[in-house]
């Protein structure tokens, strides 16, 4: 039973992740006063890319071809681990939050290696910038997870969710700090404004896009899909850590429909908020990104201190 639930949740995440991307793009368009593309636009893009023939540089090594599959697999696995609708599914014990950070890092390593593989200037430029951003984001993300895990005394996601969602309601000021820090890290990790601009055509300003400039067709489709999955996973993670109410407890089939509705509602609101913040923000100068992530790290540390001061 729980295995089929796990499979259903993983599949749902993989299939619906582009929808979240489409929703964010729609909200952005509305907020900018444009006519919005249909919410299914990301699927059309994926279909188009899958139908195209791949163009690969002569110098590309097998790593370049392999990386998109690896990146997609990492993100699909991560999406399966994070509780979205039901808690404590079979995949969850496979990795705690620390291992989750490791899975993200693995995908990033492959992306950066693939970017440098062909040896174009933009690829290595993007890889270098990605490393600059991520080596600052990763410790901050770990600090956020530690803060959240201090409350539940566990780094296992199901336990954290269980503690917050399904037990007696309590207000944790430390989580407010951690939540803001988590939002800032998510923005940086998902290559969104104000750290990166997902919709730019200016090669010299790109971070994430610069790394995938050489990809086409099915490879690009897998990476784009992985990007959507990453955004979905981060959103689900944020919801699980900071707004887990409504999630179905283990084995509670009856609560599933409500959990699904709650999840969709939270994602819709979260996507709209993301689009709103992106619309009113401009991209910061590249060397302000460390300040941005430094602030995130500081907030996460503050959250932890507050936990020790007020909540123990």
């Amino acid at each position, binding site marked *: 039973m729980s295995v089929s639930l796990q499979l259903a949740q993983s599949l749902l995440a993989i299939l619906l992740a582009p929808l979240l991307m489409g929703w964010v793009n729609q909200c952005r368009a509305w907020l900018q*006063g444009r006519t919005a593309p249909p919410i299914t636009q990301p699927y059309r893009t994926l279909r188009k890319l899958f139908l195209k023939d791949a163009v690969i540089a002569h110098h590309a090594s097998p790593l370049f071809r392999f990386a998109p599959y690896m990146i997609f697999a990492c993100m699909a696995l991560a999406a399966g681990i994070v509780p979205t609708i039901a808690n404590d599914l079979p995949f969850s014990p496979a990795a705690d939050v620390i291992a989750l950070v490791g899975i993200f890092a693995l995908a990033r390593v492959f992306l950066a290696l693939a970017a440098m593989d062909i040896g174009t*200037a933009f690829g290595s*430029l993007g890889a270098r910038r990605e490393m600059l951003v991520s080596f600052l984001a990763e410790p901050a993300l770990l600090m956020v997870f530690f803060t959240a895990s201090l409350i539940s005394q566990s780094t296992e996601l199901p336990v954290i969710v269980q503690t917050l969602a399904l037990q007696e309601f309590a207000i944790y000021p430390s989580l407010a700090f951690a939540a803001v820090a988590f939002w800032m890290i998510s923005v940086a990790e998902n290559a969104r404004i*104000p750290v990166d601009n997902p919709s730019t055509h200016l090669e*010299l*300003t790109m971070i994430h896009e610069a790394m995938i400039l050489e990809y086409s067709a099915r490879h690009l489709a897998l990476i784009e899909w992985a990007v959507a999955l990453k955004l979905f996973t981060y959103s689900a993670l944020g919801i699980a850590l900071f707004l887990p109410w409504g999630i179905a407890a283990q084995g509670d089939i009856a609560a599933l429909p409500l959990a699904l509705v709650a999840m969709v509602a939270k994602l819709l609101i979260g996507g709209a908020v993301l689009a709103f913040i*992106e619309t009113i923000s401009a991209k910061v*100068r590249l060397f302000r990104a460390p300040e941005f992530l430094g602030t995130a790290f500081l907030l996460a540390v503050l959250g932890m201190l507050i936990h020790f001061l007020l909540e123990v």
Partner: protein
Amino acid sequence: MQIGEHDWHLDPFGRHIWRGRMEAGQLLALARAVKEEGGQLVALWGSDDRHLDGGFAIHAAFLTGAGLAWASSALPAEAPAYPDLAHIFPQADRMQRATFDLLGITASEAVDERKWLRHGAWPANVFPLRRDFDPSLPPIHDTDAYPFIRVEGDGVHEIPVGPIHAGTIEPGHFRFSIIGERILRLEQRLGYTHKGTEKRFEGMDLATGAKLAGRVSGDSHSAYAWAYCMAVESATASAVPERAVWLRALFLEIERIANHLGDLGYLGNDVALGFGFMQFWRLKEDWLRLSAKLFGHRYLFDCIVPGGVAKDIDDGGRAELAAEADRIEAEVRSLKAIYDDHATLQDRFANTGIVKPDLAARLGLTGLAGRASAQAWDARAQFPQAPYDQLDVSMATQRRGDVLARAEVRFAEVTESLRLIRALLTRLPAGELHAPLAPVAAVCEGVGWVEGWRGEVVVAVRIGADGRLDRVHPHDPSWQNWPLLEIGVLGNIVPDFPLINKSFNLSYSGQDL
């Protein structure tokens, strides 16, 4: 005409325009005198005059305290050479190299003798702008092999960008030498849109010439078309009806506003403020559609013709344009408030891509970008042709020389141009739109000088005795400003380059010809 202590025998050649011929050696002395007086070199070009007087000629247009001075020197048919002007006016460097590529006229003792406009399409010993050039020669497909200047040292890295870019923009190659993200050197390689425009003018009739001139750089159509018509009208000593002149100014100001609105949007887009981009482009689109409705073309193509204008505006159109001007002004004011209050945007704009005033003066930064670096030249304000002499144009200047300053100049010029449009509409004189050109009896010359949105556009024209165009040289302000972009980005970081580039927004087509 007196410059410094010497009389250079330059004769009045139109309003604020002077013309003279001199020995090639004297040209150098004139350049020095202009430089000492605080003037600038505007344009430098050559011509093949072997069918007229048996030799070549080199021409230079200087901006002086009394206006535009056009000086020419005849050069021998064999091994034509003139003294290098680039050591006085650095902006001459690329113009000299292009003159050699097209005509084989050498600047003696020039420091930089590399090719400029010639890529791999024609051999080094063939000069396409010469009269005896054989256009039936098959194009060669040689590799470009352009000797870029390399920066060497530990950790120095080269990024080649373009000529094909990810966005829909004109082609140009940028070679960055960087260390980390810091730009140590930028070298441009342009000429990818060389179309042989100047060659195409040869033998063209005067009316068709106006169409071609307007297409030298499409975003400056009215500026080029007006400058060309001004040149042709001055060469043929033809009078233009007053209403036509006022309508030309109206077209030029409409063009300025359209471009400034677009650029202000792009500047927002380049810092990922999609909102600003969309809002300014909405305004630009409304503006273009109104142009299409009133004058039949979104970018006012072919509205200016030799002898006058081809389109008129009626009372209904005047009211509509004035109402739209009011609306745009209000909207731009509120959008400016948003830009002004946006901390991240201001942080990106301020102190980015600085060109200091003294450097701008030394290297000849001109036009809009020049005014943002305290180079207070605006032909509409200082050397006004009709109808600007009755409009009292106020010039927008800034001293900071950064992206913010260039944005501020655009904002100020949008407001001023809207004021000018209202004044032009209210005081538009009645009368004819068009008068026939006076017939041409002998070889004659003329020059047109118009302050386009990017800077001064100069078109020099020589008409043959048969009444057809003999030599036309359109000059774009981008010639002077491209090298300053190379300097302006030094010490900035690579991801700020697109923003700095956009704040100049220079023409490729206009300088590649």
